[in-house]
């Protein structure tokens, strides 16, 4: 019996692997990276002050502190774009892992309360420890994301029918409402409302080199870990039984992915604020392109997510210049119709 189950499971895994489209994946990754470079340049040159290409070139290779435009590029625009790309990759990989691990097509760190938890911790850190080094802020942010996730999953698993996707989303909505209300209360009490308004709406405009130094290595390490466990995630995404029958150590995989999810989400929120839907949209698009094998989904999601947020940030800056549209709102406007489409279609998946 057990042997049969194993054979069947192996067949399933094979079938999934067959859906993988390595050539397409490679093309997407390469063209994505090229596109990313292209949007980097576009992003640097467009904005409240337009800058031409030769100035950009000079800013990197013949930097002159006397030239304002060089300063703008080096100190404002460049860190901002790197920040946007990292945040996009982080949210997307976190979303992909969540969707794979929980087999929940509606999973996203924003929808499931992780982002709100991180924002609440940011409110606390601004209120109680103003001027705290950025590293500690990031750590608190992880803790907040973990808090949000555990409440949502706790409520979900307490309920009689278990962790259905819809139930999790509803619990996520309520937890988000609660944690946001709490952070508003805290922010009002300590008069940091003005600082916090930024985090609710979302934006990468204040990204600085000192932040990037902290987050860049962590994001890269986390994505690397995600890639290492991607094979196990693929098997988990076929269901607990399949994974067990193939001798997978599911608990270990789950723990590692939870850690990666919480760190990536917390980190991204500490840079950009509570931006939802990136982690929802990107993995879905990616699956459409490269199939269901997470060894491809994760890296491609990272690239696609980076492109999405960089482009969204570019639009946020230029659509209504000189004002900025909060990037979170902009992405929500794309994300909500997408979510509705999934929720409608999802008779089978949900």
């Amino acid at each position, binding site marked *: 019996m057990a042997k049969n189950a194993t054979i069947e499971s192996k067949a399933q895994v094979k079938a999934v692997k067959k859906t993988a489209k390595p050539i397409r994946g490679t093309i997407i990754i390469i063209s994505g990276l090229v596109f990313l470079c292209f949007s980097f340049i576009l992003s640097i040159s467009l904005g409240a002050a337009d800058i031409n290409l030769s100035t950009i070139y000079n800013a990197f290779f013949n930097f002159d502190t006397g030239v304002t435009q060089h300063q703008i590029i080096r100190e404002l625009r460049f860190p901002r774009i790197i920040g946007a790309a990292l945040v996009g990759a982080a949210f997307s990989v976190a979303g992909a892992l969540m969707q794979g691990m929980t087999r929940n097509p509606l999973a996203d760190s924003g929808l499931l309360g992780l982002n709100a938890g991180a924002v609440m911790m940011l409110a606390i850190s601004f209120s109680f420890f103003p001027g705290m080094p950025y590293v500690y802020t990031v750590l608190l942010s992880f803790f907040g994301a973990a808090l949000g996730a555990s409440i949502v999953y706790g409520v979900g698993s307490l309920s009689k029918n278990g962790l259905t996707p819809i139930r999790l*989303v509803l619990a996520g909505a309520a937890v988000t409402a609660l944690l946001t*209300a709490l952070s*508003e209360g805290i922010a009002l009490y300590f008069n940091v409302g003005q600082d916090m308004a930024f985090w609710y709406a979302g934006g990468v405009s204040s990204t600085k080199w000192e932040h990037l130094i902290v987050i860049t290595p962590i994001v890269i390490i986390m994505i690397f870990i995600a890639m290492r466990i991607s094979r196990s995630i693929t098997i988990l995404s076929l269901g607990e039984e399949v994974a067990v029958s193939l001798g997978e150590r599911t608990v270990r995989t789950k723990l590692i992915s939870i850690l990666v999810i919480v760190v990536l989400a917390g980190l991204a929120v500490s840079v950009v604020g509570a931006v939802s839907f990136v982690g929802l949209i990107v993995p879905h698009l990616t699956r459409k392109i490269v199939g269901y094998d997470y060894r491809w989904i994760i890296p491609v999601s990272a690239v696609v997510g980076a492109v999405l947020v960089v482009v969204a940030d570019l639009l946020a800056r230029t659509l*209504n210049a000189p004002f900025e549209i*909060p990037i979170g709102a902009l992405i929500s406007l794309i994300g909500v*119709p997408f979510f509705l489409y999934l*929720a409608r279609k999802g008779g089978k998946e949900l």
Partner: protein
Amino acid sequence: MMSQKTAGLIKRQKKAVFVGISLVVILIVLFVVSLNTGVMKIDPLTVIKTVFGQGEATDELLLFEFRLPRIVIAVLIGMGLAMSGAVLQGVVKNPLADPGIIGINAGAGLAITLFVTYFSTEVGGSVFLMPIVAFIGAGLTAVTIYAFSYKKDEGISPIRLILVGVAVAAGISALMIVLTLKIDPKTYDFVATWLAGSIWGSSWNFVFALLPWLIVLMPYVYFKAKVLDVMNLGDSTAVSLGMNLEKERRTLLAAAVGLAAASVSVSGGIGFVGLIAPHMTRRIVGEAYRYVLPISALIGGVLVLAADTIGRVILQPAEIPTGVVVAIIGAPYFLYLLAKLND
């Protein structure tokens, strides 16, 4: 057998009346407490004196022009939202329905924002248009949500309705934030306050704008209590009892949207009241709508007035928006219901 049943009914009626009276008493106590709390403290005796026209001019101004209208509005919107929630829960047969959670409030808020942007609130008379504007916005949103959660072969699945509502609410909030960039800073403040759920309209004008809606819709809904009871028995029973189900559903839904929209047009987007109040009520007086409706209205009034008073007092001189206080109470309750709910 029969007499036992009647005895049970009488007992329940007595209980409902008792609960109703106690709630009115609580409301009055809260009313007095709320009147004399705030940044400027007035002792209870002065409050009573002033209420009877024996006080000083400054106290009179503070009480009658600032605190009293705000308290009245808090109670009225609490009632409106609670009743709206009770009706919604009955009509869509979903215990998690609430005008805030399913996005009706957000739709009203968007319409109000547009209205405030293009016709400033300062213009006399426009205050009375606001509930109508809110109703249009909320109505369009309700239709959208209904359309998205309807599936040909399954009809409306209760939980999908909530899911779609949550998403629509998120989308509308995002749209409001984007809109705020097009408008002047003053209107921006308005939107920010609205989203946080402050009671922002606190003069008698707003009371008079809101009141007619409640005076018409609350008795109308109460008059339909029997219909809601029958709906509760299931579609086939309702039809076999000769009810025009679709028509009743539509009118009741419109009434619920109207109640929520009118309330929200003078307050911010306060969620969870329409969820909590009817649930608490059902626990106390059972399912019969002729008790559920008035008692939830009272609980809703108490809840919002209490939240507003707490919000005004706890962080003096800053105010916590009422919606924030309600969410801190309401969200855990929603989670509790979610965990308990069977599909």
